[in-house]
Protein backbone atom coordinates (compact mmCIF):
# COMPACT_ATOMS: atom_id res chain seq x y z
CA UNK A 1 0.00 0.00 0.00
CA UNK A 2 1.07 3.57 -0.59
CA UNK A 3 3.64 5.11 1.75
CA UNK A 4 5.34 8.47 1.77
CA UNK A 5 7.81 9.98 4.23
CA UNK A 6 9.55 13.31 4.59
CA UNK A 7 12.08 14.64 7.07
CA UNK A 8 13.79 17.98 7.57
CA UNK A 9 17.41 18.42 8.58
CA UNK A 10 20.07 21.10 8.59
CA UNK A 11 19.21 23.13 5.49
CA UNK A 12 17.35 20.41 3.58
CA UNK A 13 14.15 18.39 3.31
CA UNK A 14 14.12 14.76 2.16
CA UNK A 15 10.92 13.51 0.53
CA UNK A 16 10.39 9.84 -0.23
CA UNK A 17 7.45 8.01 -1.80
CA UNK A 18 6.89 4.45 -2.95
CA UNK A 19 6.79 3.84 -6.70
CA UNK A 20 3.96 1.32 -6.95
CA UNK A 21 0.91 2.01 -9.09
CA UNK A 22 -1.82 -0.33 -7.91
CA UNK A 23 -5.18 -1.27 -9.37
CA UNK A 24 -7.37 -3.30 -7.03
CA UNK A 25 -5.05 -6.08 -5.77
CA UNK A 26 -2.77 -5.86 -8.79
CA UNK A 27 0.53 -3.97 -9.05
CA UNK A 28 0.43 -2.46 -12.54
CA UNK A 29 3.63 -0.43 -12.44
CA UNK A 30 6.72 -0.39 -10.23
CA UNK A 31 8.46 2.84 -11.22
CA UNK A 32 5.78 5.50 -10.85
CA UNK A 33 7.14 8.91 -9.73
CA UNK A 34 4.77 10.29 -7.05
CA UNK A 35 6.89 13.33 -6.18
CA UNK A 36 6.38 16.45 -8.28
CA UNK A 37 8.83 19.34 -8.51
CA UNK A 38 6.55 22.36 -8.21
CA UNK A 39 9.23 25.06 -8.39
CA UNK A 40 13.04 25.19 -8.18
CA UNK A 41 12.90 24.77 -4.39
CA UNK A 42 9.62 22.94 -3.80
CA UNK A 43 8.72 19.24 -3.79
CA UNK A 44 5.32 17.62 -3.35
CA UNK A 45 4.70 13.93 -2.65
CA UNK A 46 1.11 12.90 -3.33
CA UNK A 47 -0.92 9.81 -2.53
CA UNK A 48 -4.57 8.80 -2.36
CA UNK A 49 -7.31 7.89 -4.81
CA UNK A 50 -5.69 6.94 -8.14
CA UNK A 51 -6.65 9.46 -10.80
CA UNK A 52 -7.44 12.17 -8.28
CA UNK A 53 -3.77 12.26 -7.31
CA UNK A 54 -2.32 12.97 -10.73
CA UNK A 55 -5.14 15.30 -11.72
CA UNK A 56 -4.78 17.38 -8.56
CA UNK A 57 -0.98 17.34 -8.59
CA UNK A 58 -0.89 18.61 -12.17
CA UNK A 59 -3.43 21.32 -11.34
CA UNK A 60 -1.22 22.47 -8.45
CA UNK A 61 1.98 22.21 -10.48
CA UNK A 62 0.60 24.38 -13.28
CA UNK A 63 -0.88 27.00 -10.99
CA UNK A 64 2.35 27.32 -9.00
CA UNK A 65 4.21 27.69 -12.32
CA UNK A 66 1.70 30.31 -13.49
CA UNK A 67 2.29 32.36 -10.34
CA UNK A 68 6.01 32.20 -10.98
CA UNK A 69 5.67 33.37 -14.58
CA UNK A 70 3.29 36.19 -13.65
CA UNK A 71 5.22 37.50 -10.69
CA UNK A 72 8.85 36.76 -11.64
CA UNK A 73 9.58 35.04 -8.34
CA UNK A 74 8.13 31.75 -7.08
CA UNK A 75 5.80 31.39 -4.11
CA UNK A 76 7.60 30.75 -0.84
CA UNK A 77 6.97 27.30 0.66
CA UNK A 78 4.64 28.61 3.39
CA UNK A 79 2.53 30.56 0.87
CA UNK A 80 2.41 27.65 -1.55
CA UNK A 81 1.28 25.38 1.30
CA UNK A 82 -1.52 27.80 2.23
CA UNK A 83 -2.68 28.03 -1.36
CA UNK A 84 -2.64 24.25 -1.84
CA UNK A 85 -4.54 23.75 1.42
CA UNK A 86 -7.15 26.20 0.18
CA UNK A 87 -7.46 24.30 -3.12
CA UNK A 88 -8.08 21.05 -1.21
CA UNK A 89 -10.47 22.67 1.27
CA UNK A 90 -12.50 24.18 -1.59
CA UNK A 91 -12.51 20.82 -3.35
CA UNK A 92 -13.71 19.05 -0.18
CA UNK A 93 -16.79 21.27 -0.20
CA UNK A 94 -17.61 20.61 -3.86
CA UNK A 95 -19.75 17.86 -5.43
CA UNK A 96 -16.77 15.58 -6.12
CA UNK A 97 -13.85 16.26 -3.75
CA UNK A 98 -10.26 15.27 -4.50
CA UNK A 99 -9.10 12.54 -2.17
CA UNK A 100 -5.39 13.34 -2.05
CA UNK A 101 -2.83 13.45 0.76
CA UNK A 102 0.32 15.53 0.39
CA UNK A 103 3.75 16.14 1.86
CA UNK A 104 5.17 19.47 0.78
CA UNK A 105 8.88 20.04 1.30
CA UNK A 106 10.59 23.27 0.34
CA UNK A 107 13.57 25.49 0.92
CA UNK A 108 12.79 29.16 1.53
CA UNK A 109 15.44 31.09 -0.41
CA UNK A 110 14.60 34.39 1.28
CA UNK A 111 15.05 33.17 4.87
CA UNK A 112 17.41 30.24 4.10
CA UNK A 113 15.31 27.71 6.00
CA UNK A 114 13.83 24.31 5.06
CA UNK A 115 10.11 23.75 5.61
CA UNK A 116 7.92 20.67 5.58
CA UNK A 117 4.12 20.69 5.51
CA UNK A 118 1.78 17.78 6.12
CA UNK A 119 -1.53 18.14 4.27
CA UNK A 120 -4.39 15.63 4.12
CA UNK A 121 -7.49 15.32 1.93
CA UNK A 122 -9.62 17.15 4.53
CA UNK A 123 -7.51 20.26 4.09
CA UNK A 124 -5.52 19.88 7.30
CA UNK A 125 -2.26 21.80 7.11
CA UNK A 126 0.51 21.53 9.68
CA UNK A 127 4.16 22.41 9.55
CA UNK A 128 6.12 19.43 10.88
CA UNK A 129 9.78 18.43 11.40
CA UNK A 130 8.93 15.05 9.83
CA UNK A 131 5.80 13.50 8.42
CA UNK A 132 4.34 10.46 6.71
CA UNK A 133 1.20 9.25 4.95
CA UNK A 134 -0.20 5.76 4.49
CA UNK A 135 0.21 2.58 6.52
CA UNK A 136 3.96 3.19 6.68
CA UNK A 137 3.31 6.17 8.94
CA UNK A 138 2.41 3.87 11.87
CA UNK A 139 5.98 2.55 11.86
CA UNK A 140 7.84 5.62 10.61
CA UNK A 141 6.46 8.19 13.05
CA UNK A 142 7.56 6.31 16.17
CA UNK A 143 11.00 5.73 14.68
CA UNK A 144 11.29 9.40 13.74
CA UNK A 145 10.17 10.43 17.25
CA UNK A 146 13.20 8.55 18.49
CA UNK A 147 15.81 9.26 15.78
CA UNK A 148 14.93 12.56 14.09
CA UNK A 149 17.49 15.34 14.55
CA UNK A 150 16.73 18.77 13.03
CA UNK A 151 20.48 19.49 12.94
CA UNK A 152 21.41 16.24 11.17
CA UNK A 153 23.56 16.29 8.03
CA UNK A 154 22.15 14.95 4.77
CA UNK A 155 23.93 11.60 5.23
CA UNK A 156 22.46 11.20 8.73
CA UNK A 157 19.02 12.21 7.44
CA UNK A 158 19.17 9.63 4.67
CA UNK A 159 20.27 6.99 7.19
CA UNK A 160 17.21 7.81 9.36
CA UNK A 161 14.96 7.56 6.30
CA UNK A 162 16.54 4.18 5.47
CA UNK A 163 15.66 2.97 8.98
CA UNK A 164 11.99 3.89 8.38
CA UNK A 165 11.86 2.19 5.00
CA UNK A 166 13.56 -0.96 6.33
CA UNK A 167 11.20 -1.17 9.30
CA UNK A 168 8.17 -0.83 7.03
CA UNK A 169 9.56 -3.51 4.69
CA UNK A 170 10.13 -5.82 7.66
CA UNK A 171 6.81 -5.43 9.50
CA UNK A 172 4.12 -4.21 7.10
CA UNK A 173 2.20 -7.00 5.38
CA UNK A 174 1.57 -4.93 2.28
CA UNK A 175 4.90 -3.08 2.16
CA UNK A 176 5.89 -1.45 -1.13
CA UNK A 177 9.09 -2.67 -2.73
CA UNK A 178 10.78 0.44 -4.07
CA UNK A 179 10.97 4.12 -3.19
CA UNK A 180 11.97 7.29 -4.97
CA UNK A 181 13.83 9.78 -2.80
CA UNK A 182 14.27 13.49 -3.57
CA UNK A 183 16.08 16.20 -1.67
CA UNK A 184 15.52 19.95 -1.72
CA UNK A 185 18.08 22.36 -0.30
CA UNK A 186 19.73 25.69 -1.17
CA UNK A 187 20.93 24.27 -4.50
CA UNK A 188 17.43 23.20 -5.54
CA UNK A 189 15.89 19.80 -6.13
CA UNK A 190 17.68 16.54 -6.90
CA UNK A 191 17.01 12.82 -6.75
CA UNK A 192 19.15 10.59 -4.54
CA UNK A 193 19.62 6.85 -4.34
CA UNK A 194 19.33 5.01 -1.04
Amino acid at each position, binding site marked *: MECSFAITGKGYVIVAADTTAAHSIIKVKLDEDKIKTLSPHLLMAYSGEPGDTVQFAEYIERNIRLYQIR*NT*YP*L*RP*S*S*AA*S*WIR*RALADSLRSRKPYSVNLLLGGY*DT*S*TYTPHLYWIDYLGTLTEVPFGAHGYGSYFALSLLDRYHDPEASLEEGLATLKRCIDEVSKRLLVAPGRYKVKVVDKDGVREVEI
Partner: protein
Amino acid sequence: MARRYDSRTTIFSPEGRLYQIEYAMEAISHAGTVLGVLAKDGIVLAAEKKVTGKLLDLSSVKEGGYGGSGEKIFLLNSNVVAGVAGITADANSLVNFARQAAQRHLYLYNEDIPVELLAQRLCDMKQGYTQYGGLRPFGVSLLYAGYDPHYNFQLYHSDPSGNYSGWKATCIGANNGTATSLLKQEYKDDITIEEAIKLVLSVMSKTMDSTTLGSEKLEFATLTLDPTTKKPKAKIYRPSEVDELLQEQGLAKKEEDDKSA
Protein backbone atom coordinates in the same frame (compact mmCIF):
# COMPACT_ATOMS: atom_id res chain seq x y z
CA MET B 1 -11.37 71.38 -33.25
CA ALA B 2 -8.28 72.01 -31.12
CA ARG B 3 -9.81 69.94 -28.34
CA ARG B 4 -10.43 66.95 -30.59
CA TYR B 5 -7.80 64.73 -28.99
CA ASP B 6 -8.16 66.13 -25.47
CA SER B 7 -11.62 64.91 -24.70
CA ARG B 8 -11.11 61.15 -24.96
CA THR B 9 -8.47 59.35 -22.95
CA THR B 10 -8.36 56.47 -25.35
CA ILE B 11 -7.42 58.40 -28.45
CA PHE B 12 -3.88 59.18 -29.56
CA SER B 13 -3.15 62.63 -30.95
CA PRO B 14 -1.45 62.80 -34.37
CA GLU B 15 1.87 63.30 -32.54
CA GLY B 16 1.26 60.01 -30.75
CA ARG B 17 0.43 61.45 -27.34
CA LEU B 18 -2.34 60.79 -24.87
CA TYR B 19 -3.22 64.26 -23.66
CA GLN B 20 -5.46 63.23 -20.76
CA ILE B 21 -2.60 61.28 -19.21
CA GLU B 22 -0.27 64.23 -19.57
CA TYR B 23 -2.87 66.53 -18.01
CA ALA B 24 -3.27 64.10 -15.11
CA MET B 25 0.46 64.19 -14.54
CA GLU B 26 0.33 67.98 -14.70
CA ALA B 27 -2.35 67.95 -11.99
CA ILE B 28 0.00 65.96 -9.79
CA SER B 29 2.89 68.37 -10.21
CA HIS B 30 0.73 70.99 -8.47
CA ALA B 31 -0.11 68.74 -5.55
CA GLY B 32 1.68 68.69 -2.22
CA THR B 33 5.19 67.23 -2.31
CA VAL B 34 5.72 63.62 -1.23
CA LEU B 35 9.26 62.44 -0.59
CA GLY B 36 10.61 58.95 -0.01
CA VAL B 37 14.10 57.80 0.93
CA LEU B 38 15.29 54.22 1.18
CA ALA B 39 17.78 53.45 3.94
CA LYS B 40 19.52 50.14 4.63
CA ASP B 41 17.44 49.53 7.77
CA GLY B 42 14.17 51.23 6.83
CA ILE B 43 12.31 53.74 4.68
CA VAL B 44 11.18 57.31 5.35
CA LEU B 45 8.19 59.04 3.78
CA ALA B 46 7.25 62.68 4.21
CA ALA B 47 4.41 64.66 2.64
CA GLU B 48 3.39 68.28 2.45
CA LYS B 49 -0.24 68.91 3.31
CA LYS B 50 -2.10 71.46 1.21
CA VAL B 51 -5.46 71.55 2.96
CA THR B 52 -4.72 73.55 6.06
CA GLY B 53 -6.06 76.52 7.88
CA LYS B 54 -7.19 77.74 11.25
CA LEU B 55 -10.80 76.71 10.69
CA LEU B 56 -10.09 73.12 9.61
CA ASP B 57 -11.33 70.74 12.28
CA LEU B 58 -8.49 68.30 13.00
CA SER B 59 -9.85 67.05 16.32
CA SER B 60 -10.74 63.65 14.89
CA VAL B 61 -7.17 62.89 13.81
CA LYS B 62 -5.42 64.04 16.99
CA GLU B 63 -5.99 60.83 18.91
CA GLY B 64 -7.87 58.23 16.86
CA GLY B 65 -6.73 56.08 13.94
CA TYR B 66 -3.25 54.76 13.27
CA GLY B 67 -1.53 58.15 13.04
CA GLY B 68 -1.23 60.85 10.40
CA SER B 69 -4.07 63.09 9.42
CA GLY B 70 -5.27 60.86 6.60
CA GLU B 71 -4.63 63.32 3.82
CA LYS B 72 -1.37 62.15 2.25
CA ILE B 73 0.04 59.09 3.98
CA PHE B 74 -1.85 55.81 4.30
CA LEU B 75 -1.19 52.35 5.64
CA LEU B 76 -1.98 49.92 2.78
CA ASN B 77 -1.00 46.76 4.62
CA SER B 78 1.08 45.94 7.67
CA ASN B 79 4.18 45.96 5.45
CA VAL B 80 3.41 48.87 3.09
CA VAL B 81 2.92 52.60 3.68
CA ALA B 82 2.00 54.85 0.77
CA GLY B 83 2.22 58.57 0.14
CA VAL B 84 -0.16 60.02 -2.44
CA ALA B 85 -0.01 63.12 -4.60
CA GLY B 86 -2.85 64.32 -6.79
CA ILE B 87 -6.61 64.33 -6.55
CA THR B 88 -7.43 63.21 -3.00
CA ALA B 89 -10.77 61.66 -3.95
CA ASP B 90 -9.09 59.47 -6.58
CA ALA B 91 -6.37 58.60 -4.10
CA ASN B 92 -8.90 57.41 -1.51
CA SER B 93 -10.42 55.06 -4.04
CA LEU B 94 -6.99 53.69 -4.98
CA VAL B 95 -6.01 53.26 -1.33
CA ASN B 96 -9.19 51.29 -0.76
CA PHE B 97 -8.44 49.09 -3.78
CA ALA B 98 -4.87 48.53 -2.59
CA ARG B 99 -5.99 47.49 0.88
CA GLN B 100 -8.44 45.00 -0.60
CA ALA B 101 -5.78 43.61 -2.95
CA ALA B 102 -3.43 43.16 0.01
CA GLN B 103 -6.07 41.38 2.07
CA ARG B 104 -6.98 39.15 -0.87
CA HIS B 105 -3.34 38.09 -1.10
CA LEU B 106 -3.25 37.42 2.63
CA TYR B 107 -6.39 35.28 2.33
CA LEU B 108 -5.03 33.21 -0.56
CA TYR B 109 -1.39 32.80 0.44
CA ASN B 110 -1.27 33.56 4.17
CA GLU B 111 1.60 36.04 3.71
CA ASP B 112 1.90 39.81 3.43
CA ILE B 113 1.67 40.84 -0.21
CA PRO B 114 5.09 41.46 -1.78
CA VAL B 115 5.54 45.19 -2.36
CA GLU B 116 6.11 44.99 -6.09
CA LEU B 117 3.01 42.85 -6.49
CA LEU B 118 0.88 45.45 -4.75
CA ALA B 119 2.32 48.17 -6.99
CA GLN B 120 1.56 45.99 -10.00
CA ARG B 121 -2.05 45.43 -8.89
CA LEU B 122 -2.63 49.19 -8.67
CA CYS B 123 -0.83 49.87 -11.94
CA ASP B 124 -2.93 47.28 -13.78
CA MET B 125 -5.99 49.20 -12.65
CA LYS B 126 -4.51 52.61 -13.51
CA GLN B 127 -3.47 51.39 -16.96
CA GLY B 128 -6.99 50.15 -17.61
CA TYR B 129 -8.29 53.67 -17.29
CA THR B 130 -5.95 54.89 -20.05
CA GLN B 131 -7.37 52.40 -22.50
CA TYR B 132 -11.08 51.88 -21.91
CA GLY B 133 -13.29 54.63 -23.28
CA GLY B 134 -15.36 57.22 -21.56
CA LEU B 135 -13.34 57.21 -18.38
CA ARG B 136 -10.84 59.61 -16.94
CA PRO B 137 -7.50 58.35 -15.63
CA PHE B 138 -6.67 58.44 -11.93
CA GLY B 139 -5.04 61.77 -11.18
CA VAL B 140 -2.77 60.21 -8.61
CA SER B 141 0.88 59.31 -8.23
CA LEU B 142 1.87 57.09 -5.34
CA LEU B 143 5.05 56.32 -3.45
CA TYR B 144 5.03 52.86 -1.90
CA ALA B 145 7.39 52.21 0.99
CA GLY B 146 7.36 48.55 1.85
CA TYR B 147 9.14 45.46 3.09
CA ASP B 148 9.01 41.85 1.95
CA PRO B 149 11.39 38.90 2.40
CA HIS B 150 12.15 38.77 -1.34
CA TYR B 151 13.88 42.15 -1.70
CA ASN B 152 13.72 43.58 1.86
CA PHE B 153 13.02 47.33 1.94
CA GLN B 154 11.71 48.80 -1.30
CA LEU B 155 10.48 52.14 -2.58
CA TYR B 156 8.27 52.30 -5.67
CA HIS B 157 6.64 55.12 -7.59
CA SER B 158 3.62 54.80 -9.86
CA ASP B 159 2.05 57.43 -12.13
CA PRO B 160 -1.39 57.86 -13.80
CA SER B 161 -0.33 56.01 -16.96
CA GLY B 162 0.25 52.83 -14.97
CA ASN B 163 4.05 52.88 -15.12
CA TYR B 164 5.94 51.99 -11.99
CA SER B 165 9.60 51.98 -11.03
CA GLY B 166 11.79 51.32 -8.00
CA TRP B 167 13.88 54.07 -6.41
CA LYS B 168 16.51 54.72 -3.72
CA ALA B 169 15.11 58.17 -3.17
CA THR B 170 12.47 60.04 -5.10
CA CYS B 171 9.90 62.77 -4.96
CA ILE B 172 6.49 63.50 -6.49
CA GLY B 173 4.29 66.58 -6.46
CA ALA B 174 5.13 70.27 -6.49
CA ASN B 175 8.83 71.17 -6.71
CA ASN B 176 9.77 67.57 -7.41
CA GLY B 177 12.58 68.72 -9.71
CA THR B 178 14.29 70.73 -6.97
CA ALA B 179 13.81 67.97 -4.43
CA THR B 180 15.12 65.29 -6.77
CA SER B 181 18.29 67.22 -7.53
CA LEU B 182 18.82 67.84 -3.81
CA LEU B 183 18.36 64.12 -3.14
CA LYS B 184 20.81 63.28 -5.93
CA GLN B 185 23.46 65.46 -4.26
CA GLU B 186 22.85 64.31 -0.71
CA TYR B 187 21.94 60.64 -1.06
CA LYS B 188 24.56 58.04 -0.20
CA ASP B 189 24.23 54.28 -0.42
CA ASP B 190 24.01 52.48 2.92
CA ILE B 191 22.56 55.42 4.84
CA THR B 192 20.87 54.59 8.12
CA ILE B 193 17.27 55.39 8.96
CA GLU B 194 18.36 58.25 11.25
CA GLU B 195 20.36 59.83 8.42
CA ALA B 196 17.44 59.29 6.06
CA ILE B 197 15.07 61.09 8.46
CA LYS B 198 17.51 64.04 8.61
CA LEU B 199 17.84 64.07 4.82
CA VAL B 200 14.10 63.95 4.22
CA LEU B 201 13.38 66.76 6.66
CA SER B 202 16.15 68.98 5.32
CA VAL B 203 14.97 68.50 1.71
CA MET B 204 11.37 69.09 2.77
CA SER B 205 12.27 72.31 4.58
CA LYS B 206 14.07 73.56 1.47
CA THR B 207 11.35 72.74 -1.05
CA MET B 208 8.20 73.67 0.83
CA ASP B 209 6.70 77.10 0.34
CA SER B 210 6.47 77.94 4.02
CA THR B 211 9.64 78.93 5.86
CA THR B 212 9.01 76.81 8.95
CA LEU B 213 7.91 73.20 9.22
CA GLY B 214 5.11 72.14 11.51
CA SER B 215 2.64 69.32 11.97
CA GLU B 216 -0.10 71.36 10.28
CA LYS B 217 1.87 71.25 7.00
CA LEU B 218 3.75 67.97 7.28
CA GLU B 219 2.91 64.28 7.38
CA PHE B 220 5.64 61.83 8.24
CA ALA B 221 6.07 58.06 8.35
CA THR B 222 8.77 55.44 8.71
CA LEU B 223 8.89 51.71 8.02
CA THR B 224 11.43 49.67 9.96
CA LEU B 225 11.89 46.12 11.20
CA ASP B 226 10.80 45.41 14.73
CA PRO B 227 14.02 44.33 16.51
CA THR B 228 12.35 41.51 18.47
CA THR B 229 9.81 40.06 16.02
CA LYS B 230 11.77 40.87 12.80
CA LYS B 231 8.42 41.87 11.26
CA PRO B 232 7.97 45.17 9.40
CA LYS B 233 6.70 47.96 11.59
CA ALA B 234 5.07 51.01 10.04
CA LYS B 235 4.91 54.18 12.05
CA ILE B 236 2.81 57.05 10.80
CA TYR B 237 3.57 59.99 13.05
CA ARG B 238 0.76 61.74 14.92
CA PRO B 239 0.77 65.55 14.71
CA SER B 240 2.29 65.81 18.20
CA GLU B 241 5.00 63.33 17.26
CA VAL B 242 5.81 65.26 14.06
CA ASP B 243 6.31 68.44 16.13
CA GLU B 244 8.45 66.53 18.60
CA LEU B 245 10.61 65.19 15.76
CA LEU B 246 11.02 68.65 14.24
CA GLN B 247 12.00 69.99 17.65
CA GLU B 248 14.68 67.30 17.94
CA GLN B 249 16.04 68.11 14.49
CA GLY B 250 16.01 71.83 15.21
CA LEU B 251 13.64 72.60 12.35
CA ALA B 252 10.60 73.50 14.41
CA LYS B 253 8.93 76.85 14.58
CA LYS B 254 10.62 79.18 17.05
CA GLU B 255 8.56 80.58 19.93
CA GLU B 256 9.40 84.18 18.92
CA ASP B 257 8.05 83.55 15.42
CA ASP B 258 4.75 82.51 16.93
CA LYS B 259 4.48 85.74 18.93
CA SER B 260 5.45 88.03 16.06
CA ALA B 261 3.03 86.29 13.68
